[in-house]
């Protein structure tokens, strides 16, 4: 259906949003610099208006998709009348223009949230924060309107039907993966804006970190979930059963995550102890810069990968200029302003401060390692030294040992005290847990598979070394005269958030270790009636059939699976689909998920004689990878729910307020 008006309203709303962003970027910053309250007061209404008009633009584009308006180029290239409605709605961000629009909408959403929830901020601080976010938004909205207008029309010769959404993207994972990822990427703009505002105002006390911490945690949690969803999607949708490929675009999301992980820890140090001030500012700038760079790498097509949509170099240049201005100016500001506000707070080398410093250094080293591996092929190419690709061997060789080292310090972190602590005390708190981790880790592969395996032992030891000392700490902390329950209640949500987050890391490590070492993959030829045994499961092909879906044709196999001699069996149905509009074949994997193992069946090519090349896989503990990520994200959110971030609520609750303050004093 063609509508004259909807895309034009969307386009117009986008232009209004840009103008509002411009006012939001200029007036409050100028007002804060010249101390004019009226100018500063522009910040909040403009943030609200910008969000409203971007939401209108976004809804208009969604409406064009749902109504099959193929006069809109974007819709004609990425949708089809046969596409189910939910994929039409998610196809909006399955392409370059729409995904940048979503990026801008989410930025406006975060800005609106900050303007709404930060009313108790000093007026000039809020004006600066919203001003900086407004300027970032100006850059992106100009990018959308000038190079990537999602409302461009195909008039007067419009196509009868659309070219369809890339079948790889017709999937639940895709519906949720990009928005989560963008929530994370863009969410780091808040802490970035706070850091820049603090630099501009010359007030780099611990106050800005207290305001920025909850926002950073939430953004980090979203990014964690986003990355996990991407990994999960690649696992079942690409048909290879891999869950991480060190693909440049995956790395682009991992980089801000690593820097963000360092940031949430260094924010804690700055807030509690007032040290690491310049460092925290630099990390805040770096984390958001890496988010922007990730956007650049994906959107410019400088690095090709499964995620890159069709690209055009003028867009790449625009984003690079945007990146250059944003990051360059921020780092320049940092170099000029950071020294004015620094002073040292002393701490002993055996203290939580020192352990967190090591955590930060290691995380930054890991970030740089991944960054170098990601851009190295580009550097060589730019210097005319040939085209190469840096593969998993490089990343694994550096990432794994550095992570193990990080985890060794991570086990001690929760036990340690601020400022200084007695070495004997630390030893007393951790030796038993360490010994238990070594013993259990040492025998774990023997018990699980009857054969010793160094890598598995190492993985289990590391995971237990994170969990056991923390469990002991928890046991001691919950000791209370009124019983355990009272003891548990006494602990703050921030502490529980830390526990969950660290537990998540351990769970992910277990998943990575087991699935990397014990996964079984068999590529076999199967016809109807053939049986194959993999890891104690018998797979029998009982039927081959042709099916028709809404926008595809499929060959489907029925595979009956039986474990050992058990009577019970279940059926798995992998498909090989041909998407009609694009003529693109796709593998639809059949999965039997479980907490301790996944069974994974994918159809390959049809062979002569009516049989098929089939890929059967046994993936033990693979779910733990993503379960761990969910725990980490839950930890991040839980820490935000801590009472001390809810000052206004606590103030109204006469009992809560003193308790919260008392806890703060002891923490």
């Amino acid at each position, binding site marked *: 259906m063609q509508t004259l008006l909807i895309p034009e309203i969307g386009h117009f709303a986008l232009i209004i949003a840009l103008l509002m962003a411009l006012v939001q970027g200029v007036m409050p910053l100028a007002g804060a610099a010249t101390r004019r309250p009226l100018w500063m007061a522009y910040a909040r209404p403009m943030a609200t208006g910008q969000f409203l008009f971007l939401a209108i633009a976004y809804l208009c584009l969604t409406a064009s998709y749902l109504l099959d308006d193929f006069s809109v180029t974007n819709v004609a290239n990425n949708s089809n009348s046969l596409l189910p409605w939910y994929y039409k709605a998610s196809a909006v961000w399955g392409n370059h223009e729409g995904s940048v629009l979503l990026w801008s909408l989410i930025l406006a959403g975060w800005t609106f949230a900050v303007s709404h929830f930060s009313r108790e901020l000093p007026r000039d601080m809020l004006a600066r924060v919203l001003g900086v976010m407004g300027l970032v938004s100006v850059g992106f909205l100009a990018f959308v309107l000038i190079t990537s207008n999602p409302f461009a029309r195909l008039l007067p010769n419009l*196509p009868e039907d659309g070219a369809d959404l890339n079948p790889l993207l017709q999937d639940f994972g895709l519906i949720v993966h990009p928005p989560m990822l963008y929530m994370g990427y863009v969410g780091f703009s808040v802490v970035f804006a706070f850091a820049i505002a603090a630099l501009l105002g010359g007030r780099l006390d611990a106050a800005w970190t207290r305001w920025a911490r909850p926002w950073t945690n939430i953004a980090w949690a979203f990014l964690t979930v986003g990355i996990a969803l991407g990994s999960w999607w690649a696992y079942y949708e690409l048909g290879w059963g891999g869950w991480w490929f060190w693909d440049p675009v995956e790395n682009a999301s991992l980089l801000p995550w690593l820097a963000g992980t360092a940031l949430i820890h260094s924010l804690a140090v700055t807030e509690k102890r007032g040290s690491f001030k310049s460092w925290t500012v630099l990390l805040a700038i770096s984390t958001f810069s890496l988010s922007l760079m990730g956007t650049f790498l994906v959107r410019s097509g400088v690095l090709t990968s499964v995620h890159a949509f*069709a690209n055009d170099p003028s867009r790449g240049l625009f984003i*690079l200029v945007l990146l250059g201005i944003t990051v360059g100016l921020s780092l*320049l500001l*940092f170099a000029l302003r950071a020294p004015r506000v620094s002073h040292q707070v002393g701490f002993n080398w055996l203290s939580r401060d020192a352990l967190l410093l090591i955590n930060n250094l290691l995380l930054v080293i890991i970030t740089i390692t991944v960054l170098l591996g990601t851009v190295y092929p*580009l550097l060589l190419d*730019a210097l005319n030294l040939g*085209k190469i690709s840096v593969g998993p061997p490089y990343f694994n060789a550096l990432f794994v040992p550095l992570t193990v080292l990080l985890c060794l310090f991570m086990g001690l972190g929760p036990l340690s005290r601020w400022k200084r602590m007695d070495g004997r005390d630390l030893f007393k708190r951790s030796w038993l847990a360490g010994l238990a981790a070594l013993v259990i880790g040492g025998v774990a592969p023997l018990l699980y598979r009857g054969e010793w395996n160094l890598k598995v032992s190492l993985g289990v030891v590391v995971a237990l070394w994170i969990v056991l000392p923390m469990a002991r700490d928890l046991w001691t902390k919950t000791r209370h005269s009124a019983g355990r329950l009272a003891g548990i209640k006494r602990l703050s949500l921030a502490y529980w958030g830390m526990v969950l987050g660290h537990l998540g890391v351990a769970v992910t490590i277990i998943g990575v270790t087991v699935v990397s070492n014990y996964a079984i993959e068999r590529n076999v030829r199967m016809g109807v009636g053939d049986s194959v045994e993999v890891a104690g499961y018998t797979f029998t092909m009982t039927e081959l059939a042709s099916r028709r879906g809404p926008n595809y044709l499929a060959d489907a196999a029925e595979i009956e699976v039986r474990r050992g001699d058990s009577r019970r069996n279940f059926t798995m149905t992998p498909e090989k689909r041909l998407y009609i509009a*694009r003529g693109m074949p796709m593998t639809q994997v059949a999965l039997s998920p479980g907490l301790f193992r996944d069974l994974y069946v994918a159809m390959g090519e049809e062979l002569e004689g009516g049989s098929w090349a089939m890929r059967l896989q046994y993936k033990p503990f693979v779910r733990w990878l993503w379960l761990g990520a969910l725990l980490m994200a839950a930890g991040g959110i839980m820490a935000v729910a801590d009472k001390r971030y809810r000052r206004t609520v606590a103030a109204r609750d006469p009992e809560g307020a003193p308790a919260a303050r008392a806890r703060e004093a002891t923490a």
Partner: protein
Amino acid sequence: MKRRLLLLLPLVGFLVLGIFLFMGLSINPFERDSALMAREFPTFELATLEDADRVVDESLLEGEVTLVNVWGEWCPTCKQEMPQLLDLAERGVRLVGVDYKDTRDKGRDFLDTYGNPFEVNIFDPEGTLGFDLGVYGAPETFLVDRDGIIRYHHTGYIKPEDVRDTILPEVEKWR
């Protein structure tokens, strides 16, 4: 003063990275290295689209620099690419088509409607040759030299400006 210089370090690092990213932009992203670069064209034995009884193999491509274009009736971009291919044929470039995952009738209709720049079309209904070539989808174009070695790979749509800027220079280079 020393500390101030230290604080400039992140900026300097970023500027260096920025310069490389800028240089990276001028590298054609679609020039991804095909795994087949500088290798022989894969062996095949397939009928032609024009004549179901005529079977051709890789020797078809030897003796003259040839542009092999993978297309299909189902592929909308291929229709937009046809004028560029006709232009190339007019400039004396030898073109061979691979009708990929198509039916014979639809393939012939396509050529009747949009013109036929190809000397001959290899009919690949099962996509076996396409699979050996490692194509992701249509259109994709391979330049094969007189010895049957793949010398250049163009993924996706050949834009009008690509004819002059990349395809013709590559053809000249290997002639």
